[in-house]
């Protein structure tokens, strides 16, 4: 019975993240427009865009290889699997033990790996710019993420997200390390999702693009898949922050339907708040030069390391 329920939750989660991701994008865009005193597109605009892109014909560069065509799907599926394994509204996912926090980080890493590769496939200069900058950011963001994972794992005594969430719910007091980790995670999230101040998802000024530069040569359904993947990634990070730092409302193992309803509601709430904070931050700050980003990410790395060190030193005497 429990197994079946868990399977259902797992399946539900996979669908939910799939459905919510574009909505989150639309929501943030709308909010941003509002904050900038514009009316902005309707919230469901991203869905339309995706459909439109899917229907369009694909214009493929002459020397695009098989990797260029299969890349988007791999990127998408890797991101999706990662997103599906982060507890969103219930901790009791059937397959949550398939990949712990480190593995999820690595999954995102693989999707980035392929993204950077397809960026270089056609052999234009912009693709190269995008890939090389992306990897440079990643080379700082990923260790920071691992440090955060260590910090949390040392506290919770586990790298399993469901266990961590449960631990946070029940027995986590206020810890300095947690604060540091949160700050670090926010920075990483900003960088990973190509948001201001690291990158600007709305820009089309070539030399400032990072993520956009990599997908520059894409069109039609390929572009749609990539956009979808990006949306999923944003959702993933917000739900990650939610799951680790504000786990309240997560439906615990084997609880009734109403608990699940509560969990879902609270999850939507978290998304809304998270998206709002994100937009608020983005509108209140300007994009920084590419070579100031390493400092920005370095801060995250240092914060994560600091949090971990504190735990190491304050452990077991």
């Amino acid at each position, binding site marked *: 019975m429990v197994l079946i329920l868990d399977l259902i939750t797992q399946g539900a989660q996979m669908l939910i993240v799939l459905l919510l991701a574009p909505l989150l994008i639309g929501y943030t865009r709308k909010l941003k427009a509002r904050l900038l005193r514009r009316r902005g597109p309707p919230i469901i605009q991203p869905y339309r865009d995706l459909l439109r892109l899917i229907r369009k014909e694909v214009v493929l560069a002459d020397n695009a290889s098989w990797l260029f065509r299969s890349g988007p799907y791999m990127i998408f599926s890797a991101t999706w699997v990662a997103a599906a394994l982060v507890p969103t509204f219930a901790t009791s996912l059937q397959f949550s033990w398939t990949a712990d926090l480190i593995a999820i980080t690595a999954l995102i890493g693989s999707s980035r790996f392929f993204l950077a590769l397809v960026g270089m496939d056609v052999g234009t200069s912009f693709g190269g710019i995008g*890939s090389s900058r992306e990897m440079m950011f990643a*080379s700082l963001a990923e260790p920071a993420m691992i440090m955060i994972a260590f910090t949390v794992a040392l506290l919770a005594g586990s*790298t*399993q997200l469901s266990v961590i969430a449960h631990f946070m719910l029940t027995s986590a007091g206020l810890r300095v390390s947690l604060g540091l980790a949160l700050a670090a995670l926010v920075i990483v999230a900003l960088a990973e999702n190509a948001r201001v101040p690291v990158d600007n998802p709305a820009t089309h000024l070539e030399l400032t693009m990072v993520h956009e530069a990599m997908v520059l040569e894409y069109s039609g359904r390929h572009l749609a898949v990539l956009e979808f993947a990006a949306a999923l990634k944003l959702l993933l990070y917000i739900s990650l922050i939610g799951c680790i730092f504000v786990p309240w409302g997560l439906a615990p193992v084997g609880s009734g339907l109403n608990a699940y309803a509560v969990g879902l509601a609270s999850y939507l709430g978290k998304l809304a708040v998270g998206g709002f904070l994100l937009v608020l931050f983005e509108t209140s700050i300007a994009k920084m030069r590419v070579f100031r980003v390493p400092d920005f990410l370095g801060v995250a790395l240092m914060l994560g390391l600091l949090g971990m060190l504190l735990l190491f030193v304050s452990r077991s005497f």
Partner: protein
Amino acid sequence: MTSVVIALWSVAALLGVAVLAVVTLRSSAATLLTYGACLAVSIVILAVALTFLIGAAQPQSTKLPFGLPWIGANFRIDALAAFFLAVANLGGAGASLFAIGYGTHEKAPGRVLPFYAAFLAGLNLVVLADDAFTFLVSWEFMSLSSWALVMAHHRDPENRRAGYLYITMASFGTLSLLLAFGLLAGGSGGYTFADMRGTTAALPGLVLILVLLGAGSKAGLVPLHIWLPLAHPAAPSHVSALMSGVMTKVAVYGFIRIIFDLNGPPAWWWGIIVIPLAGITCVLGVLSALMQHDIKRLLAYHTVENIGIIFIGLGLALAFAANAMPAAAALALTAALFHVFNHCVFKSLLFFGSGAVLTATGERDMEHLGGLIHRMPLTAFAFLTGCVAISALPPLNGFVSEWLTFQAILLSPDVPSWGIKLIVPAVGAMLALSAALAAACFVKAFGVTFLGRPRTPAAEGARETDPASLAAMFAFAALCLIAGIFPGFVIDGLAPVTQSLVGGRMPAQSTIPWLSIVPVAESRSSYNGLLVFSFIAIATLAAVEIIHRFASRSLRRGPAWACGYFDASPAIQYTAGSFAQPIRRVFGDVVFLAREHVDMPPPGDPRPARLTVTLRDLVWETIYDPVTNAVWFTAEKLSYLQFLTIRQFLSVVFGALVSLLFLLMLVMLVWS
């Protein structure tokens, strides 16, 4: 016939092949003959080792009337030896298979074939040896034969320099090990490993240092790694694969054998020496790799990085073992050994790929390549698999061992010693950093070599390589995947090794549902490569299916857009140098004192603008330059003694006589 006897016969067979190769050098079949025989023998030893390991058999030893007369040549197989035999001969078999095709392009087979077989024999002998003398003989025999292979293309002065550096460093390492064994054996001359196990050395700490020097210089620990990125690429590619994939592992074996097995119980501070060294090795290795544009040298620098990862595991195991945490020690050791296996597989695979590229284009410099994915798609696919694996990305094998290492790091707060507490987090950060940088580096390696557009006619005219080479590459690519999705079996295979070395083992994995792996307890952490892989596969297929159901089939080929200013010249592509530039900006000016100098001519001046980047190898400048300079200075000064006149020589003799008499007088005066 026991496994050890079979293994020894196989080694004898390899030596026979070496002789045979010399004899049949003239004939055209020599290449096929030699590599075929090597392949067969390697497979035999591999089978023996695997059966031994899986059967968890008792150690077997034998003794031949060679070597040191009064102790003979002792050989032994135990779990550890069996595992490394398996790794070595796996690499050997792969390299031989690859060489069946690759070797036909060799200009001077006479300088490769005999030494190749001898090299394989040496690798196996080191692992089988059970006394100090046999061990060192095999060890140096291994270095010697590989030196000959490095010198195979000796007309290139770079290769000669590499060979010289290599053989000198190898001899340095051997002499350090010699001293270490001197300590372990004691004055009575108990040179067999059995005796050494029985007694504890006079200064175990000094033994550790000496072994770090000896085995470390062979494995490529910073700062003893300088020869490696020169020598490994200089050899023919299948030999590079052996040197990087197997020989460094045999060096690791030497370290484990001496430190974990012979040197008695570890002291609390050993880990504090090994772990930071390993961390620095990781980061320095991968950063140097990022700065390369010679693909084989890039791979060689990555070997340095991976050796660092392995030694992090070993250092943690030492720390845990010193603090009576056998389970944790087993985990760390398993992680290290798993990575030994993984690195052997994907590094060999990558060197095979680079070899295929080298034969197809005659180029090692990535700046002259590009677009090969169109011309050699199969090679590209295999190479890509290797890149994903070495970048520690799920679901392939590289991730699993790195994940295990992370899990071991997460156990380290329980170690009481303060040093560990302070060091391990930093090293964890280094490990994570090097993992991320590795990913960047292989995006560069694959992207610049295989993607984009060909930068030279050589790359333009490349053709897919021969079936034998492809077979080897795909076999290893498959291994990367299998080890990645069924890690549990590998871990269980390693259990007897850890059991015998640190007296503990990881929980049995193969019984866990869904074949996921659980280092300590499921509540703590678990990973399931199989499911991750199948999820990704399913999700991809589903996505493709669904999208294609709704999407328009229509697809049009056109020139790339590139925001409108698309230029036909492939020169505008990002090069290896430009790809690494951001990372060089971030890390380079600290680690390499990187300096960029832009020479921008004023408007109207037809000169091309020119960017020059200077990197400095601080390790070389701070350690090796002073030593070489000191030696040459001394040689220079002493050399005057060659040019004295007879009378001056006489005065030297006279002085010696008088001073000795004077000394004697003093002694006798004091005496009476």
